[in-house]
């Protein structure tokens, strides 16, 4: 698989601060990529550079293996920014046509694709409605359609689920999977860690303009695991004391323990079997992305910077 996007030492300075400070990473084609970070971490600036709205101060940006050329590559990118809107007074059909044509589609192509997507999302009856008559969720759906309808290679979605009910969120989620399967790459930026865990293959975490974490969701979790295990058992608990592990929490039939340095899970199981404990389940507790996020970001000056930024 080749990389659709490669960032090398990308930098962007504003008058008072480094918004993006020496960030490098690459994104595989067809993957769903999570871009995480607290407010003011530099995500929006980074995305604006990837979409060609801003130019980087220094560093290289490769799109599909070639230096990024916003003038021509914009047709392969679909961007749904966090601050998004539509022309309120325009009819929905005309609006979709306009945005599609701006992405370089001809009139007939645009019409055909809009009809296809409107049908898919059951929006056909909306064509002559005005945007101001739509609910927030409905206009969100329309925005999603206009972002993806020109079949871009790279789709950038900034908080795509905010304001959507679970039903519509699932609809969009399924579409995201579908698009990735058909070869599109998706960059997904959000604060909602449970969505990232569910959807993304690969994540990076930014804070204060720097990349502080990069890897697949499983790798990252492995990296931050604390060797904690959850044991469920039957029968009366006995006093379990061993150098192999320390007990963090004990309930009637459940035990949360942490394996000490130099031992592994087999040592624990062995010990427990010797103690004649009837084990029902034994599994590792991996940290959630939320925990990792809070662990990494807490304590930095991220919150103060978030307020300075705007």
């Amino acid at each position, binding site marked *: 698989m080749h990389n659709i996007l490669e960032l090398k030492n990308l930098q962007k300075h504003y008058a008072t601060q480094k918004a993006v400070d020496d960030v490098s990473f690459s994104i595989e084609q067809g993957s769903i990529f999570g871009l995480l970070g607290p407010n003011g971490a530099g995500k929006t600036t980074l995305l*604006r550079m990837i*979409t060609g*709205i801003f130019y980087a101060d220094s560093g290289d940006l490769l799109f599909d293996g070639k230096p990024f050329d916003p003038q021509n590559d*914009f047709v392969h990118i679909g961007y749904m920014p966090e601050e*998004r*809107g539509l*022309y309120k007074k325009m009819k929905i059909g005309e609006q979709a046509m306009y945005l599609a044509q*701006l992405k*370089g589609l001809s009139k007939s192509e645009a019409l055909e694709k809009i009809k296809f997507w409107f049908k898919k999302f059951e929006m056909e009856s909306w064509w002559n409605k005005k945007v101001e008559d739509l609910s927030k969720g409905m206009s969100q759906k329309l925005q999603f359609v206009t972002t993806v309808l020109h079949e871009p290679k790279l789709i950038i979605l900034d908080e795509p689920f905010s304001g959507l009910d679970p039903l519509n969120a699932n609809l969009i989620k399924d579409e995201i999977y579908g698009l990735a399967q058909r070869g599109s790459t998706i960059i997904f930026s959000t604060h909602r860690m449970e969505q990232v865990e569910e959807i993304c293959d690969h994540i990076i975490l930014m804070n204060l303009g720097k990349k502080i974490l990069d890897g697949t969701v499983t790798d990252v979790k492995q990296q931050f695991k604390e060797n904690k295990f959850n044991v469920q058992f039957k029968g009366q608990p006995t006093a379990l004391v061993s150098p192999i592990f320390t007990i963090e929490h004990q309930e009637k039939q459940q035990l949360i323990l942490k394996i000490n340095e130099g031992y592994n899970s087999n040592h624990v199981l062995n010990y427990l079997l010797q103690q004649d404990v009837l084990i029902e389940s034994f599994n590792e507790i991996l940290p959630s992305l939320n925990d990792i996020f809070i662990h990494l970001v807490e304590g930095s000056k991220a919150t103060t910077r978030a307020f300075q930024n705007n």
Partner: protein
Amino acid sequence: MNKIFLVASREFKTRVQKKTFLLSTIGLPILIFGFYALMIYFQVKTTDNFKVAVSDQSKLFNGKIDDKKSTEVIFSFIDADTAALNKKLNNQEYDAYLFIPNDYNLQSGEPQIAFRSSKALGLMTREKIENRINNALEEKKLLALNISKGQLDSARLENNAISFTTNDGKKDNETKVGISYAVGMIAGFLIYIILFVYGTMVMRGVMEEKVSRIAEVIVSSVKPFELMLGKIFGIGAVGLIQFIIWIVLVFGLQLLIPVLFPDVAAQMQSAPIQPGAMGAATAVKESGALQGILSGLAEINFTLIIGCFVFYFLGGYFMYAALFAAVGSAVNEDPQDAQSLLLPIMMPIIFAMVIMTKAVNDPNSTLAIFGSLFPLTSPIVMMARVAHGVPDGVSVVQLIASMALLVLGFLGTTWVAAKIYRTGILMYGKKVTWKEMWKWAFKNN
């Protein structure tokens, strides 16, 4: 280029399809025309068989005002005092009466002759009555001095006793100067209005894009500069169309005047082509001056003026539209912010208007020359000078220099505005000052 066209055509279509556009483009001239037509109607309206009782106590007129046989105003002599006359007026036997007191002195005009009518007179009727009585009185006075009317006419100086010419031998008559004044004033004022109306329209459009948060979506497919230009072109086209419709309507409705008011038409003949009804009313009043106005108009180079008007219309619009767009991009939700940011843009326009009022009087003053060259004021001021003709009002060199400076000026403001615009449309939730806009424009970011 294709994208600028796409943006422009969207701007154009959404505005032209609005009901308010139709209303203001077609409704407004019709409304104004209707208003003027009503005004003319009431002013011109003459009452047939307007009966005036004349009670000539001093036997001044000997039972006859003049030899005219008019059916419009009929003077009939009766002998009655004011009380009796008032009664007759109340009984509607007469529409008005004229009372010449017994001790009326022709030379001093004392005590005054009283004219009383049952209701206010129309302008035309009043004119007619006044003219006839004044003429009759004048003749009586001349007779008393032993001068005949023929002698007086031959003694009168014609208007053109002195021949005013300019250095290059061209005739410089008063009516021409007057017409140049009017044409310059109207053209300058129109451009002033255009700059404000369409400039604010551009600003509102930019604000709408920013407030509705569509700007970022759009600039991911269009360069901010293209978006701004598209908007300016689109709204400019709306303005141009609107103006063309207005002009066509004004000329078209002008043709209606003779149909509606045959009286006026008869006196207007081939009346001057200027925004109609008011001109018509004055033309009726002094139909003698009509000849002068016509010849004055003939001397004005309308091809030049219309050509210059279109050039300065577009040049001025493009220059200011970009600035208005920059301000719009810096404004957040609160339209109040726009007020303070607009001030520096409105100042030169108002300043230009002030210079223009001076320049129509004195097209070659230093102030007028400066104002017509400086690109921020030239669209308005130059129209005042051009109306006086080339080279009387403005030399060819100055005109070309002014046009070149305007083009440079509009490239300059557009370049600066584009940089402010680029940063501004993506900046949310922050109140922007001029200092910051200056930074955006002149520091690289």
